[in-house]
């Protein structure tokens, strides 16, 4: 049961963060990551169009754009949190990893507390905040050792 990767995609489909979260995470080059990020962004949008169930305005029940929320494969689970401001937080993990939803929401809170409050961070740009990456690492450590209680 391990977390693999976290990636964050901005409103226009550009990748603003990718971070391996554990030892089992495959190491891929940055360009590959950029490609993966934009591909996911487009697939997310196309899925809403291709879906047999179309929601009004393509907005799901939490008000954010509808699209891929979860992909389950043989050795991987991918979960995506689409925020109302257009950012996607995507996490991949080995099957059986608990608390993926909670972790994604906590990462959103960390993003708003660490990355956004950094006065030198420009919106939609790659995140280069140590505080944010350290907090994410600490969060993953806490989850792997003890589990995160929903607040």
């Amino acid at each position, binding site marked *: 049961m391990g977390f693999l990767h976290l990636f964050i995609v901005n409103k226009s489909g550009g990748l603003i963060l990718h971070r391996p979260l554990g030892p089992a995470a495959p190491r891929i080059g940055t360009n590959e990551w950029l490609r993966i990020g934009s591909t996911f962004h487009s697939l997310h*949008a196309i899925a809403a169009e291709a879906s047999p169930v179309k929601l009004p305005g393509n907005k799901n029940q939490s008000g954010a754009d509808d699209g891929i929320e979860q992909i389950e494969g043989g050795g991987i689970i991918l979960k995506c949190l689409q925020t109302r401001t257009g950012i996607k937080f995507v996490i991949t993990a080995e099957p059986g990893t608990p608390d993926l939803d909670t972790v994604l929401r906590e990462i959103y809170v960390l993003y708003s507390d660490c990355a956004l409050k950094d006065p030198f961070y420009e919106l939609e740009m790659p995140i280069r905040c140590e505080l944010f990456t350290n907090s994410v690492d600490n969060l993953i450590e806490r989850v792997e050792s003890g589990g995160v209680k929903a607040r």
Partner: protein
Amino acid sequence: MSSKSQAVQAGQTLWAKMPKANAELFALTYGSLVTELVRDYEDPIEVNAQLDRIGHSIGVRCVDEFLSKADVAGMGSATRCSNLRDTAEVLAKVGFKMFLGTGAEAGGFSQDQRSFSIYLQDNPLSTFVELPQHGDDHQSGGDDLRKLKYSNLYCGVIRGALEQVNLKVECSIVRDTLKGDEVNEIRVELKEVLADGAGDDYKDE
């Protein structure tokens, strides 16, 4: 659809979870910011524009914090808005409460439901403030400061925050307790609902 009492409760819960700052430090810091701007730009209209810009950068960041913390606290449903009326209530009851600790009221909805007002009874930014009186001799631009919108920051914050959720609005301060009115009123007008998202490119091919 969020009901008013649900919004009030959400506002209080979220305010309780936020780290608090000293209200005097907050008011005095803002006051020094405004006086510096007045000294630098000298023209109160320009200062208003700068305050709006500063508020805008605050607003675009605030909204993610608002949405993420509400979601984690289980109050996600309180932030769901199906029309502009809901947006106004959530803005006043949850947003203002969460960040400033004071409740605000939403009202003054226009006939076409495209504009509303936010009423603030106590303004934490103007705690110690007195605008210089008209006709002060030693201040060359003394009576011009009547044109200064001291709390214009709020207009920028609202504009920036709503822009991130695809609502393009224009805000202005129409009544100000610093100028003698009984309540602070911010008028918010919806200009357009922006449609974004990659989905638009793939429709109807």
